[in-house]
């Protein structure tokens, strides 16, 4: 593995560790509902501060079940990941094409004006 790939892998491993540590050490155990969403906790805090508060508008569309909600979240992540992967794939392909084209040009150049010509440095 190149040094570059090692650093990238290390970065990913750190992110994974940060996500796993709270689960492994059971940091949610003191809660009634471990690892609930902070957004939902904020709603609870609002009703604690102001028990009379009634939300005055409700969502136009609500996913009918947790499964459908997680499907839509997965769709969101997949769309994003797809675009990012397309970007880097395209870039990589372009770069490989460039390198090949340059190599071909250089090979032809070498045949043409002999061994004495300075090689373009990449």
């Amino acid at each position, binding site marked *: 593995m190149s040094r570059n790939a090692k650093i990238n892998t290390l970065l990913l491993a750190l992110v994974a560790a940060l996500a796993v540590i*709270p*689960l492994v050490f059971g*940091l949610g155990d003191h809660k009634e509902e471990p690892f609930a969403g902070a957004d939902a906790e904020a709603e609870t805090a609002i009703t604690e*501060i102001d028990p009379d508060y009634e939300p005055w508008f409700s969502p*136009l569309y609500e996913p009918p079940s947790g499964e459908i909600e997680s499907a839509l979240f997965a769709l969101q992540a997949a769309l994003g990941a797809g675009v990012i992967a397309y970007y880097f794939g395209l870039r990589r392909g372009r770069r490989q094409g460039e390198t090949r084209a340059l190599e071909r040009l250089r090979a032809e150049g070498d045949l043409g004006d002999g061994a004495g010509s300075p090689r373009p440095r990449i």
Partner: protein
Amino acid sequence: MHIAEGFLPPVHAVAWGVASAPFVVHGARSLIREVREHPESTLLLGASGAFTFVLSALKLPSVTGSCSHPTGTGLGAILFRPPVMAVLGTITLLFQALLLAHGGLTTLGANVFSMAVVGPWAGYGVYRLLRRYGVPLMVAVFFGAFAADLSTYCVTSVQLALAFPDPAGGFLGALGKFGSIFAVTQIPLAVSEGLLTVLVMRMLVQSSRGELTRLGVLVTSVAGRKTADSAEAVTR
């Protein structure tokens, strides 16, 4: 950081909408200008928006025993400046408000203000400041993304504390409550976002040197870099 639908009193909802609107309009104009002047950057713009899409869908556990998600707005703010992120962040928030019942239309203004306005500006500010003092690129990127993420959740806490001051502790009491829910939970997540943004920036440095140079993220001073840029520019 999503304030749920209907959970801000109407006056607050309208006020945050009014506060956010000019940023989004200005952002839309700079986005259109960017695409018109540099059509080749459309793809990277798309990737920056996509990064926000992915990260804000990732709900991660935190040390406080609750879950929250990063925002992903730091990367685009560093690459394309914050106004563009006002638009891309709003698109993400709209998607979640309309399809996921996550956030909401009445709270869109407040959520846009925290995630798509303050977050990107804070991240960009920290990044630029660190760069000015000669901090290495990747360190500045890390702290920029970290600041964009964390500041978003601090703003959400302030917004809720303004709307729901604690009967005993007042604004500050409520800020403490919402801050402990949002901001403290967010610290390790902001670290994760910083690391992921560094990862993507490293991949960009490898794959898109020419683009990063044009955007001013990379500076061409080394001769070797220049040849790489021109090679890329010729074949693009």
